[in-house]
């Protein structure tokens, strides 16, 4: 079985990687691996369920960040349809997931370009910046609640008991039976002012925020597929300096940068699948 390795993801296992001639031209690495021991992931992307009634007008986003948060040591497998390889690779990189990708041969070129971009991005080991603690009962309903919190860029980590350092601690149990209502309630309880990350101009971009006392790194994943022209971002905390790296838009730089009222705001003029913003104090 041919699997492609998302080589930039730091947590990947060491595999005997022997590129075949067909793949070598793309700069990719093909490898043998036992897919059966890996948890299969849904292809990341968006489902535009326009004919179905739902709680919101927002499209359904298939994203796997919450799965990586829930089981960070699990080995994963993306079995991807055409067109999904670059986003899946970016997602795995952003979450530093142990993931293998089985891609369509038509995706070799965009996948190679994305990997080349990722190789130029240093991956410092920074902890997640979150302000919500979740106590997970392991149920599917709790998983769906986590999915919807991630979907709304409500940044959380799992805790075994309430952490007083966090703004909000929640048990994920029966009260999360209606995940959409639960996520909305969490947002209200936290308040928008205290949200670590706000995104304006797209409802299909999800972020992961990491950082320490001196800096922050924001990964942005565009699940919608279409190029975005103008994404406004607000990160809680004052960071006078920010640098953008956007895959496919190497000359793009942050614009309309502002630090005020305890938050940093900037615009990403254009992005495709993935962008990373490094902020420093």
């Amino acid at each position, binding site marked *: 079985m041919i699997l492609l390795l998302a080589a930039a993801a730091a947590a990947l296992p060491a595999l005997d990687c022997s590129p075949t001639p067909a793949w070598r031209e793309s700069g990719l690495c093909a490898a043998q691996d036992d897919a059966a021991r890996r948890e299969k992931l849904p292809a990341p992307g968006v489902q535009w369920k326009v004919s179905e009634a739902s709680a*919101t*007008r*927002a499209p359904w986003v298939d994203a796997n960040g919450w799965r990586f948060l829930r089981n960070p040591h699990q080995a994963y497998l993306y079995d991807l349809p055409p067109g999904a390889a670059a986003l899946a690779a970016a997602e795995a990189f952003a979450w530093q997931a142990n993931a293998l990708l089985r891609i369509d041969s038509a995706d070799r070129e965009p996948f190679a370009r994305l990997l080349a971009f990722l190789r130029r991005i240093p991956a410092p080991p920074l902890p997640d910046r979150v302000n919500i603690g979740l106590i997970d009962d392991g149920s599917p309903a709790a998983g769906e609640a986590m999915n919807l919190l991630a979907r*709304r*860029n409500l940044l959380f980590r799992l805790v075994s008991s309430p952490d007083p350092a966090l703004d909000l601690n929640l048990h994920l149990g029966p009260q999360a039976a209606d995940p959409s209502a639960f996520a*909305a309630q969490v*947002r209200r309880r936290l308040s*928008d002012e205290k949200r670590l990350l706000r*995104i*304006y*101009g*797209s*409802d299909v971009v999800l972020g992961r925020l990491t950082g320490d006392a001196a800096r922050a790194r924001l990964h942005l994943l565009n699940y919608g597929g*279409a*190029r*975005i*022209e*103008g*994404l*406004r971002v607000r990160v809680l905390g004052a960071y006078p300096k920010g640098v953008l790296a956007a895959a496919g838009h190497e000359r793009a730089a942050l614009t*309309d940068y*502002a*630090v*005020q009222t305890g938050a940093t*705001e900037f*615009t990403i*003029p*254009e992005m495709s699948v993935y962008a990373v913003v490094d902020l420093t104090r």
Partner: protein
Amino acid sequence: MKRRTFLQLSSAALAADSAPLPSYRVVTSHQPAAKPGMPGPYPGVVASIQAEKSIDSETEKVDRPTVQEMIARGMRALTGQASAAAWRRFFSPSDVVGIKVNCSGAPGAMSLPEVVAEIVANLVAAGVKPGQIYLYERFANQLKTANYEPWLPEGVRIHAAEASRGALRHYDPQTYVEADFFGEEDTRSHLVRLVSETLTKIINVPNMKDHGAAGVTGCLKNIAYGSFSNVARSHRREKTHTLSFIGALAAVEPLRSRTVLHVMDGLRGVWHGGPISPNRRFRFYPRQILMGTDPVAIDRLLLDVIENKRKAEGAVSVWHHSMAHVKSGGDYADDPNVDRYLREPGHIEYASRLGLGVYDINKIQVRRIRL
């Protein structure tokens, strides 16, 4: 860092009834002009010019000399000055002038090119160079359908805020209104950057149209929803927040101060299914232009035009506010007794309470001209 003004509109105090209204946070660094463009120097005054020859209802061919005369007579009626002097009263050669057209129903319902071209001709005659005149609208595809370019002198610029739907690039990140209507993630509506950074004056050119959410769409709706991003979020299921959101947006600086003239193109109108209304059955021909500096007063007259036409056609009132006439899906496009939302024609009165103009019909002075 720019100085920023935070204004929390006390919506509850302005509510037309006891229903709770959203809370709006207005963020702008722009200060109002000493005399803001809305309602401007002629509050409560509307020049209404009607001309049978203005448009042929069969062919929809517009008689340009008649339009020329309608606008000239309207400016004179409004200001008491001859046409050239009247235009110079509002615009100087140093101005950069935006013309906010309405193309949402193009090609069947839109600011007609003949009307827009006549406005441009008057601006040029007043000394504004073509390169300092912009036509603007939110969506590029609608502007393309409207196809104004052949009607304009060389140099006039045509600007779409969104080349692709949702693009924020041409909006001002520092000037916006924040409100949470239905728990949506993106709670901001940003002002078109051209308005805040380039234009010094704006002429608003709406149509006479019915609107499924706002009741009617005239001066206020065109300048408000047509100059800000992310406004469709104010409607969900049968509920729309147009009652307060339209006025809240129109009152934001610098939009309020820079919008100095309204020329409502009522040669052709729409009495149901607006704003898009592709069904020709719902088109009608009021053959009039309303001009003024007070958007509320003009829209107050528009309300009667649309309501009277609907009444004559046997359609339910724009004021019905009954779920009996509200239905999801596309039936509204063909049935004048079906709406998608509980309409909010009260947005015009609401805007008057924000100081944008005169709503009381008994206090509106209509200077009627019939050609």
